[in-house]
């Protein structure tokens, strides 16, 4: 109790210095948490993706489609339960900054995604309307879409202004599911394209394949690709998770840069904290010498210095931790839907706590060693 009181009083001896250090720590822990959450958000799509679904695409590139005729042949392979079509539409809603994903999908597509929950009546309404579309909750909330709204979308890959009627709003089963997307009938797209650009009709961007057992994903993938080997459009089949990670891999350098920045932030505040502790310890050299003269050993001084450093880092870290969810919420809003899933994970919180503790411990090492080694007679002569 006595020691704790002494540690706490020491920590706030120079109030301004301690407050500034606490503010710096809070900002650093907050920044670290936000940057880690950005990285997590980047992987959120892949994390939410399933290993029980396969994605079959053109082996050359995702840009090249596959023939519609592949659908039946894929369905005939052992272990395949469902085959759904999906084409990237890439349209613009009002202006380019309002980007969101739009897919033309076959009617069985949602059967493969039990994590998306669409009310039955809305599902029926969607199936009945050729121009109907379904939008995710996150997207609907962002733009204020309601059932019955007409969405004019300007095609970039498929020219013209397309109109879709919102017939359903689907929810994610939990917060990790990205529902910032829109889906509409693949047949509507194909029929329209058949009229305007016949050569591009009956082409599928990719097939999403449901399988009976995720353990067989690799062998089924190989079987699918074997069927189309040496054809004009060879396929590349992989799990949906691997497919999503392939997208994330395109941003590896950016993610690496974000990670490095987050570590640099911690290193900088570690240096600031170490400086604060070094200054405090240097000013108290004669006090430490006095304590040693009275019979206190180096261990006691080490406890005082480590304790003081830990008190400051705990307060700074706690503020940083408390502010992180608020800042994450504001960041998500400011990012305008770029990160549909932007939740501070438990792992990030633990990392933040770990960082604060490591900063506290690291900052105290050198001052504690110096205090432990100082000769009493030299220390007593020291001027704070």
């Amino acid at each position, binding site marked *: 109790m006595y020691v704790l009181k002494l540690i706490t009083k020491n920590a706030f001896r120079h109030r301004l210095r301690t407050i500034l250090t606490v503010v710096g720590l809070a900002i650093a822990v907050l920044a670290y948490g936000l940057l880690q959450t950005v990285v997590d958000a980047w992987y959120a799509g892949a994390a939410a993706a399933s290993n029980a679904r396969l994605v079959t695409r053109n082996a050359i590139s995702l840009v090249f489609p596959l023939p519609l005729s592949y659908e039946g042949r894929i369905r005939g392979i052992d272990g395949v339960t469902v085959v759904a079509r999906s084409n990237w539409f890439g349209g613009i809603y009002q202006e380019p900054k309002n980007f969101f994903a739009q897919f033309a999908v076959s009617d069985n597509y949602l059967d493969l995604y039990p994590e998306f929950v669409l009310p039955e009546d809305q599902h029926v309404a969607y199936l009945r309307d050729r121009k109907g579309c379904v939008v995710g909750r996150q997207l609907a909330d962002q733009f204020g879409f309601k059932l019955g709204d007409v969405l004019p979308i300007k095609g970039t890959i498929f020219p013209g202004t397309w109109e879709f009627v919102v017939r359903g709003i689907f929810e994610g089963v939990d917060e990790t599911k990205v529902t910032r997307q829109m889906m509409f009938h693949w047949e509507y797209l194909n029929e329209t394209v058949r009229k305007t650009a016949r050569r591009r009709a009956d082409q599928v961007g990719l097939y999403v394949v449901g399988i009976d057992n995720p353990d067989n994903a690799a062998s089924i993938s190989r079987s699918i690709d074997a069927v189309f080997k040496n054809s004009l459009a060879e396929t590349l089949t992989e799990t949906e998770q691997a497919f999503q990670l392939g997208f994330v891999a395109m941003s590896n350098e950016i993610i690496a840069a974000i990670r490095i920045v987050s570590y640099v932030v911690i290193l900088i505040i570690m240096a600031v904290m170490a400086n604060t502790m070094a200054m405090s310890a240097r000013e108290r050299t004669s006090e430490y010498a*006095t304590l040693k003269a009275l019979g206190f050993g180096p261990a006691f001084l080490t406890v005082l210095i480590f304790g003081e450093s830990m008190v400051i880092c705990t307060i700074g870290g706690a503020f940083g931790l408390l502010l992180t969810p608020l800042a994450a919420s504001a960041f998500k809003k400011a990012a305008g839907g770029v990160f549909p899933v932007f939740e501070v994970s438990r792992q990030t919180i633990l990392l933040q706590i770990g960082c604060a503790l490591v900063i506290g411990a690291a900052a105290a090492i050198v001052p504690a060693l110096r205090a432990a080694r100082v000769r009493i*007679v030299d220390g007593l002569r020291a001027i704070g």
Partner: protein
Amino acid sequence: MSSAPLVELRQLAKAYQRGDQIVPVLTDITLDIEEGEFIALMGPSGSGKSTLLNLIAGIDKPDSGKLLIGGLDITRLSEADLADWRAANVGFIFQFYNLMPVLTAFENVELPLLLTSLSRAERRERVEITLDMVGLADRMRHVPSELSGGQQQRVAIARAVIADPTLIVADEPTGDLDRNSAADILNMMQRLNQEMRKTIIMVTHDANAAHAAKSVVHLEKGELIGTIKGRGESTVEE
């Protein structure tokens, strides 16, 4: 048969290294200090009196010679054992009081008792008695910055005696005080010596302060040049 002196110094020597030079500070010091003595170490600056005090207090080590306190050769103790020995046997009074500025007078005096096995209640009782003894019972919740120099030194004296040490070392205890406060502190030290039978070794420049001691030991250029005994009978006048 007379008992052995409390402090026995035999051919004690100490030198410091300044760059390439070795500067002798104490040379061939032989001195006995009896239990219950009150000695003033006097001499000009650089004469080695503070170094001698530091050696006797066990916060510095001699280069050669013997240093026995209560029959124990403290030069042979490890750092940890020496720290324990100081905690049990030596009380310190410094020129600038060396109190912990964030702690109250009570907490400062309590500090040495943390190294004992006393309970919290026992510590509290002893601190209150000691602070009352130095006349600061009504100031025990004040931090040093709220006390005058004389009061701070009285807190330091209370801290020095709280663990009931055999030996009290004081380095210029009145050096930072006005005349009245200095006299007050010296009177208190005389009481510690006479009433509580504490052995006190005090370094001072001040002849008036030295007058409070029973004996005065003179040092010059690191050598013992003389001892005057039989003083300190009268109280110090303010």
